[in-house]
């Protein structure tokens, strides 16, 4: 068999295998939709989001409860997903992502009213004294196992 025919044969084998694979996957996808539909059907707005985002959504609920609309928030965390999700759900609040409290020294923090630390990456204690003087309210969220505790600090 010459090289050309070998290539053609390979091509046909590839398409044949691909076609069979696609049929199998389509069948599997279609079967999968029934249990998935059952799993998601009838869930409330919050339940759906808890199911998708877990603890991150718990944080968002807490922030929505305690932080006023259109606030300026400093979000201290190493968890980018939690930040972007919070920013999305909390708009029109304006959020600034800070990966370490040390970075606060380089930020003009005047307009920010709230600090959120999530989950509990670095203790804010060394910085809190100075910050609380500048902010009306600071929040510190701590993850303890599966339960969440919110510590509210007032000026």
């Amino acid at each position, binding site marked *: 068999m010459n090289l*050309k025919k070998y*290539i*053609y044969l*390979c*091509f*046909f084998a*590839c*398409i044949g*295998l*691909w*076609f069979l*694979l*696609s*049929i199998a*996957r*389509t069948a599997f*996808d*279609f079967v999968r*939709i029934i249990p*998935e*539909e059952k799993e*998601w059907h009838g869930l409330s707005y919050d339940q*759906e*989001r808890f*199911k*998708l985002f877990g603890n991150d959504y718990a944080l968002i609920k807490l922030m929505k409860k305690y932080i006023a609309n259109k606030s300026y928030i400093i979000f201290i965390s190493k968890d980018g*997903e939690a930040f*972007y*999700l919070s*920013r*999305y759900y909390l*708009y*029109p609040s*304006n959020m600034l992502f800070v990966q370490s409290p040390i970075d606060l020294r380089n930020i003009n923090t005047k307009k920010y009213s709230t600090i959120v630390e999530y989950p509990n990456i670095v203790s804010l204690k060394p910085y809190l004294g100075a910050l609380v003087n500048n902010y009306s309210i600071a929040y510190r969220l701590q993850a303890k196992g599966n339960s969440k505790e919110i510590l509210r600090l007032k000026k």
Partner: protein
Amino acid sequence: MSILNILLSATLLFGAGFSFLQLFSVFRKSSIIEILSISYGIGVALISFQLLIYDLLGIKWNIAWIILPWILVFAFVLYKVPFKKLFSFSIVKFDAFEKIVLLLIILLLCYVGLESILRPLSAWDGWATWLFKSTIFFTDGKINTNALNFTGSEYPLLIGLMGTFGYLMLGHIDDKLILILFYLFYVCLAGIFYYTCKELTNKKTALISTFLLLSLQNLIRHGGRYDAGMADLALGYYYFVCCSLFLKFIKFKNKNSFVLFMFMTGLLGLVKDDGIPMTLFLCIVGAVSLYSIKKLSYLWMLSFPIIILGQWELFKLVFHMPGAPKFIQNPEFNRTITVILGISKEFLNLENWNLLWIGFFLSLIILLIKKHKIGLIISLFVISQLLVYYYVFLSTSLDPLAHINNVIDRLLLHIAPVAMLVVSIPLYLLSKSYKNTKL
């Protein structure tokens, strides 16, 4: 009620694009499905432009004011073009095998549609960028450039404004129902792919290829499963539409098809920054094809993409929007093997692509053997982008392997529909010659 509103907004997007298309005679003889498949992308662009212009002129985003011009345009089209010509249907007969493949395609369309409305937006880029912008625009009732700066995203506004339009029609933010507008890119890609492929091959090959394309798991994810709500499938759709319009231009060689081709080419860079190299490549393709068919009087139309992209660059400049991230440095050619291996690993990722990329490279060899001119030209649409990705990964200031792993599945999605079209050509050629040998 909400689902009716979102379906109404989809109808308006189709309607706006459909009316616009009727001003060109390119698709007068085409099937209504093909026309509607292209109409959606055009409608999304037109209504996004409309929202942008209203904002710049200080006109409030009132639904009545948004819809009214399109009703007038549609009425004008109905007045100018006879109804029978506007909606021409023809009954197509399928044999038993074709009916089975068609059924599989319909099953996939239904499945992905159901998936798209099953859960709220869950894709990272969806809530970090694309639909976040829609949320900002809808909440503020305008394009709030200060807020855009705060997103830190330099991406263009077309997809964000599409989402805003959906929210305006809904009257509230619903990041579950809005995903239907993203799912429609999947549906329209199926439509335009089938008809483009049928032009180059035959009905059976077009059906098989459409099924193979739609069953790609990466496409399914972006069409309705967990990754719906991002702009990558939309860019893949627009790039394929450009390819289809280019083939129409090669066929008709008339002004209208080139105008449309250039208009859509300009839109690529407005969907996502990744579309800018595509726009540049297609401008070169357009210029070379004008030269080869001696229609140099059309050369001025190459300014369309420049104007379309230029207005966005100007907008960014005027409102001090963030520029593209500066991760490109001088290429480091010692990374060549790392980059090629990193990209090749994704080619062999059967979970995402089934056997698309293996099929594509085999097709390329067959097209070279057969010296199939059109097939080889279409292959260039894919290869040019692969070379761009290769260059980007050589030049990235990030760790190249980490960068590749992070984005390559999305980058390949932009060119996957065109790659599938390339595969369909040898499939048709070889099955035809096999049939003739048998006879």
